[in-house]
């Protein structure tokens, strides 16, 4: 399984707050219902959209085909960032 717990929890939690917690605190008024529906739908669509993208890359069946120069460039420019993420 290629998922790491942290991002999944983080994004689920984030959109959970938007979609479940915030609607409870919408101020009363004529537009309360609409605001609630908007928050819930936003949270759900955005979360599902993120999830699909995450899961599609979770267990890759093929790898990117890169040009030689691109690889050298990636190694040079991105090695710093990459190093941090691999440590994690």
């Amino acid at each position, binding site marked *: 399984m290629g998922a790491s717990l942290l*991002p999944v929890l983080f994004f689920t939690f984030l959109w959970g707050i938007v979609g479940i917690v915030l609607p409870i605190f919408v101020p009363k008024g004529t537009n309360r219902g609409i605001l609630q529906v908007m928050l819930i739908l936003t949270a759900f669509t955005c979360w*599902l959209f993120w999830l699909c993208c995450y899961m599609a890359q979770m267990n890759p069946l093929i790898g990117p085909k890169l040009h030689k120069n691109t690889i050298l460039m990636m190694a040079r420019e991105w090695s710093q960032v990459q190093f941090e*993420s691999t440590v994690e």
Partner: protein
Amino acid sequence: MGALFKSEQMALCQLFIQPEAAYLSVSELGETGTVQFRDLNSDVNYFQRKFVNEVRRCDEMERKLRYIEAEVKKDGVPIADDLMELPRAPNPRMIIDLEAHLEETENDILELSQNAVNLKSNYLELTELRHVLEKTQVFFTEKNQDSYLLLYQQEEANDSITRTLINEEAQNPSASSRGRLEFVAGVINRERVPSFERMLWRISRGNVFLRQAELDKPLEDPATGNQIFKTVFVAFFQGEQLKSRIKKVCTGFHASIYPCPHNHADRQEMVKGVRTRLEDLNLVLNQTQDHRQRVLHNVAKELPNWTIMVRKMKAIYHTMNLFNMDVTKKCLIGECWVPIADLAIVRNCLNEGSRLCGSTIPSFLNVIHTNENPPTFNRTNKFTRGFQNLIDAYGVASYREANPAPYTIITFPFLFSVMFGDCGHGFIMTLFAVYMIVLEKKYMARKTSEIWNMFFSGRYIILLMGLFSIYTGIIYNDLFSKPLNIFGSSWNVTRLKTDIDHNIGIKDTISLTPDKDYVQTPYPMGMDPGWILADNKIIFLNSYKMKLSIIFGVVHMIFGVCMSVVNIINFKRYSSFFLEFLPQLLFLILLFSYLVVLMFVKWIIYDATSEDIRYTPGCAPSVLITFINMILAGEEHSMDDCSPYMYPNQFILQKVFFGLAILCVPVMLFGKPLLFLFRKNRQERRIVGNGTPSQDIELQTEGLQNSSAINSETTDHHETESFGEVMIHQAIHTIEYVLSTISHTASYLRLWALSLAHGQLSEVLWNMVLRKGFGSPTDLFYLQSVLLFCAFAAWAFFTISILVMMEGLSAFLHTLRLHWVEFMSKFYDGQGHPFQPFCFKTILDAEDLEDQ
């Protein structure tokens, strides 16, 4: 439930208003705009209604106002157009004042312009005369003798007919003929000169000698104010007969003839006289002009106010024409639709109306029950109006039907952004929307072009579309087609770099392998930047985006089907819940949600680092092929070690799912017709079983009233339709639904197609235009910078015009289709008629539009 989820509850009301208070009450109602009046006199011709005279008076006043406005505009006097507060409709007493005032102003202006025209034509005549005198001076200074000679020579050159004429004249005493050489002087339109000349030649057989001189400056036509170019002419001739003929020709050609003395001294005298008269006239003209300006300026200030007042008056009388007179002629009766929430406002208006006219008898309002279908009224604000308009463009919701608009607020921009996903383009769109929203007040007041209005009324839609596009752009990792590497790519290139450094297996392009080069945790948010740079990016993105489209499509459609529950509860069609909703939902879930589940399963269990050979990439079955085989019951084939199924017992489960889904079809098809048949039989039996006729009537009326009050629709249908019709209707419905689930699912693939097209187009634009600007490093830096400047300009232009505007429009249309067809067809009826309240604001706006 809050606003917008369903249309407002409406009540049919009867208004009983005192005739004296009617005008003021209706005026109050028009200001608030809460009632829609019904025509109670639809059998009466418009010309025979009660207040037709008042309407005519208003028409007359409008005509006067139009005339005054035209005059004001003709003189270029500015009309104050920025009314802060619209005037209310005038009191009946004020109407008479206004009418008198208008009459007076109109007469003033009429008189003034009549005078001005008279003066001006006078002036014109004098100027023409002056010109005639001045120009002819030149002709006369040439000696008479010479001109006569010329004439003579001309005659000599003519043909035989004229020659005989000369011979005849030669018999006359030559002295007298020479003495009688006369002339006519005048002014004619320049374009008429050639034909005039020809005509003179013909009637005189060449015996007229015409001299002409063009006036340099154009003259003004007093009546129309047009500029006219004219020519002064002098025609020399002999004989009285010819003179009368020439004069006739002159009148025929609208040439004005002026007296011109023969004598030089007389002429000088006359010119002098004319000049002084002209000066005097000029003075008078200026004074009239000044006076006219003053009058028009005064009117221009009041004009917009008057126009609005008259329009309101006319609207009020039109509305009062819809009212019915009571038999006793004591009060007017009006019928109107009112939102139940606004009943108090309407009552207030009525009270205010009677109070203002000092009437002691109050007007009152009576809610009446009706079987009629009330109009649909969704109370919107400036934010929700745009979305409601999208729905209404498809069809106005039936009364109290579930309204898709509140859900569209999010789903519409979201589906749009799936196709349009790019941070940069989304940002541009957001900026545009924010600009419109910030300057909202300014643009609301101003009248603008139609295309701008379209954008402006959708400013909140555009804002949300832009914001969602930014989000999807982050997930697609697309910023003007370039990725960002924020969290660090999950594809590790160190292994390949050492390979390259040591020259092992050198090829131009190298594939990274998921088991060795992948760090085993995906990029936390969005698409890995490594993929965006890859040569096989499209293959990966296609597989991802197609699945994405299907997942969201199925979720959207299930949502739509579930929406019909709201209607079922609302209209108390509980039988539909089991006979329509459940089988529909089951059909969709068993087939298409299962497809979605398969996609997730495939994402989870197939892994390059897997120990089990069955779950390695080589063995991963295609979800689509699996699904097709499930439907068509095809054989699954696979290579030796692999299993064609993802999990145990998949084959059996799929058979069960498919079987259940097929079983749903007959329920959908026969459920409702059979229920109808069953009910009808029971009803017949009950009616037969009823006793005495009198009881029967009582029962029937009671039953009718009750049922019609609760659910008129269902009873109406059952009474009118036969079993055959119900069956055919249901068959069409079922076939449509079953086929549409398949076609609609496929239709959601447009999300993938448009998104792919958008991504590719922006990438091509970057590579073909902006990239050229970067060029290859040379020493000519200044040349490079100029090149980059131009390339950037071109790139920016195409980005905005093609990628944001055109692609945005196309994505908008596709999103609209997805909502209208794929989403709304699952539950939306759209058979209602809109609530059109009597409201001065809308009436004035509509008339303004017409004027434009």
